[in-house]
């Protein structure tokens, strides 16, 4: 019945500290070609440590085995479908890893002279212009380290521009379907957050918005397509309402992979937005980062962009630090350059027409899943789906099974779960985003699994509620972990 089960055969592996033994070595340093210095003499006795207490001592072989064994306890996109809605787990092309390791790029020091940095600066400039074209915006900064960091940068731009006009204003509007980072960001930039209720199509209600926008509103932070996977039909009117009152439209670009080559935020009234290069542009998530949160803006916000800015002078790239209206620095150096290399390699591989094809396949895959699962799971918002589809556990809750249980059971079928319980406007959400890099065969397996679980809920709900059953680690006691936190190893 279970067509795809992944077992976890790897033996137990102790912690590094537990395989440590004094005198084991995983390193060898070259002989010193200068006189050795006694640290106590050079630094003073009180500044020097005697030892790093309880620090591990292991051999190279054990290091390889240890981390390889640990790795087998992880699920990964390279193993199969990873349908985490909002997170865009698509294939991470391996050539991107190779080119990011190119010696002149990987070993470039941020303070090396510009004369020997033209290659890295050219890459950054090429990515800036590609992202400007894709988003339809006028300028791009690559400084922010991640999506939330990009949000902060974007809202700082809004604030700086409004302040220049004489009034930074007080409020940022966020739809109730927004990512948690949006309100958290607004707060960090000194704004009060006002939540806007979605309408029964899962979209921003224009009348509600109209009533909420006044001279105190600095911006609306909107994800489009939104977190329900629906394109905001009234986006042009929404932008109009904001602009009429002197407010701005910030777009959370987490779902830009649904728009590349199909529509451009710059063409529908967005003033500023961030892009998650680790989502839309395929750079690896690596267990939670690094990401990169490039920010694209219209020309009226460009004077406020973080320093430094790339500039061409006498046919050479140079960094421009003399920008009197800039919001300042958001990060040391020039952003997560290694991630930028990978994103550019991805854009080059697809090219202009290819990016549109990727978008269309992402939308095709989401709608294929939607159609196949609609008879089995409640679909609270019937609006046409873009790149993801959000069901609720309404039908299953009646039998005592919640979205979190279905998610855990999915693991037994060999898949990573979808996003559980988000967005918050859908009670018991199952947020499914397949991305374009899934074959029909893999989607069919996933659909089979989801349909099979729906039947199991009816026939044997305990089986689902106690899942997963096939993993090396069974359901984890998160309650005890939170009540009595143990966050480091002790001897």
């Amino acid at each position, binding site marked *: 019945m279970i067509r795809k089960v992944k077992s976890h055969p790897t033996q137990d592996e102790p912690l590094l*500290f537990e395989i440590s033994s004094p005198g084991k070595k*995983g*390193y060898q340093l070259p002989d010193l070609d*200068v006189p050795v210095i006694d640290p106590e003499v050079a630094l003073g006795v009180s500044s020097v440590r005697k030892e*790093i207490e309880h620090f591990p001592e292991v051999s190279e072989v054990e*290091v390889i085995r240890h981390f390889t064994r640990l790795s087998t306890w*992880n699920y990964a*996109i390279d193993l199969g479908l990873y349908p985490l809605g909002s997170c865009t787990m698509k*294939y991470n092309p391996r050539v991107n890893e190779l080119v*990011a390791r190119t010696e*002149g790029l*990987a*070993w470039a020091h*941020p303070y090396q*002279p510009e004369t020997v*940095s033209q*290659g890295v600066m*050219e890459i950054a400039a090429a990515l800036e212009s590609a992202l400007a074209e894709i988003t339809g915006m006028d300028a791009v900064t690559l400084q922010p380290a*991640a*999506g*939330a*960091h990009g949000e902060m940068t974007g809202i700082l731009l809004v604030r700086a521009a409004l302040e220049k006009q004489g009034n930074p204003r007080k409020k940022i509007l966020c739809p109730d379907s927004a990512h*948690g*980072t949006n*309100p958290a960001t607004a*707060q*960090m930039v*000194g704004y009060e*957050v006002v939540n806007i209720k979605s309408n029964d199509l899962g979209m921003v209600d224009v009348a509600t918005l109209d009533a909420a926008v006044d001279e105190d509103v600095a911006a609306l932070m909107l994800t489009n397509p939104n977190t329900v996977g629906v394109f905001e039909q009234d986006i042009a009117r929404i932008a109009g309402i904001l602009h009429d009152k002197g407010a701005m439209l910030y777009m959370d670009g987490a779902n830009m992979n649904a728009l590349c080559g199909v*529509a451009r935020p710059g063409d529908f009234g967005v003033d500023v937005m961030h892009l998650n290069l680790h989502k839309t542009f395929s750079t690896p998530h*690596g*267990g*939670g*980062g*690094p990401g990169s949160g490039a920010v694209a803006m219209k020309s009226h916000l460009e004077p406020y962009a973080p320093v430094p800015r790339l500039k061409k002078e006498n046919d050479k790239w140079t960094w421009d630090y003399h920008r009197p209206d800039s919001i*300042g*620095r958001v990060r040391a*150096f*020039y952003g997560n*350059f*290694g991630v930028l290399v990978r994103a550019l390699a991805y854009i080059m*591989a*697809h*090219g202009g027409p*290819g990016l549109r094809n*990727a978008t269309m396949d992402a939308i*095709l895959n989401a709608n294929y899943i939607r159609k196949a699962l609609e008879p089995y799971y409640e679909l609270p918002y019937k609006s046409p789906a873009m790149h993801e589809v959000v069901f609720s556990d309404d039908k299953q809750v009646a039998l005592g099974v919640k979205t979190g249980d279905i998610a855990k059971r999915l693991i037994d079928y060999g898949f990573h779960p979808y996003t559980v319980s988000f967005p918050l406007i859908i009670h018991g959400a199952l947020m499914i985003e397949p991305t374009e*890099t899934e*074959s*029909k065969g893999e989607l069919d397996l996933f659909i089979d699994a989801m349909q099979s679980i729906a039947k199991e809920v009816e026939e044997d709900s305990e089986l689902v509620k106690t899942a*997963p059953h096939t993993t090396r*680690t*069974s*359901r*984890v006691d998160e309650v005890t*972990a939170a009540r009595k936190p*143990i*966050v*480091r*190893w002790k001897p």
Partner: protein
Amino acid sequence: MRYLPKSPSERQQMLEAIGVSSIDDLVAQLPEDVRLKNPLNLPPGKSEFEIVDYFKARGAECANGYASFLGAGVYNHYRPVVADVLVQRSEFLTSYTPYQAEISQGHLTQIFEFQSMICQLTGMEVANASMYDGSSAVPEAAMMAVRITKRSQTLVAKSVHPEYREVLSTYAKYQGMPVTEFGYDSQTGRIDLDDLKSKINDDTASVIIQSPNFFGCVEELEAVAELAQSKGALLIYVFAEAVSLGILAPPVQADIVAGELQSFAISPSYGGPFAGIIATKEKYIRQIPGRLVGETKDSRGNRAFCLTLSTREQHIRREKATSNICTNQALIALVATIYLSIYGKEGLRELAIQNLSKAHYLASKLERRFEAPFFNEFVAKASDVAAVNEQLLEKKIIGGLDLGRFYPELAGNVLLCATEMSKKADMDTVIEALGGRA
């Protein structure tokens, strides 16, 4: 296209299953005036060969194979092969944040080891799973101190990395957190305690110092910790050169440690991606930003790990969260973990002593600007830094940082760094260029 695994007939079957006739029908819901009329103005897709070629050509335009004496927050350390091999394991590289603990024990276990090793290195009791980098860890630590003390002012030493301070002021600007700088002693290069004394007051939430500081000088913690804490402020210890922790006394006097781990096998990569950390005392655990992994058991009673105390974070607490941080630098923290396990207890010390020895050889032949003890970086006097660096560049050597760039009063001085990678022959060339006593 090689990243799109579908044949035309499979696409057709899927469209039929959905009940639409063409793929364009799938975006019919987009309002007409929103749809992109012309194709994106980008070149057509390229082959793998062409992509590799393009980046090789860009790499060749950079300082390929040069020796470097730049430090200033980014250090040139050897990267063991094993670290780069392991980090490319699919299961590490291509997984998401470990929210589903049952199929994420690999990352979770490793992060627990990472947190533990950061605690051992820093003498703290709790360390988070990583921040973006050192420059963003500093304002996050300052914000944390504001929450803990319920005070608003931050005092930061001028000898903290200049770009970290710039990032701090950007973050602090709209959070009602005035940031005041205090100076350094122009003789020793260490913080000016008297200046700090004159600026600290009952509204000071934290005092931020870096050690080794931007000039490479090792700070003395006792006095500053006593001063800060006697005023009810927290001491935040910042490090940018993590290898220093292999030999320097752990900053146990500090309340919060914020640092940059680039030195642990993370390639300079023109400034990122790196990984920052925040570590602190157990009593402040609920105010720490970012992800934390905790030990627990699974339903069969086996040891297991999971993300914990998530209620601090933005996806739950939204506008009341400790920070807006979501994505961190997990993969980079993994590289650091592997690096630390390769070097281990003895290796990290030996590595630190090699760095110390190389830098002291270089310094012994030059005229130092400051008197305080230093680790692998120091300030030397130079009549014309630009000319010296120009001359070195011709010999494929990148010279030190012209300090006048960040400290106008220190023009005519160069910040030099030597690591285990610095060869004596190259150092001698630098010494000669700077007119030292070879």
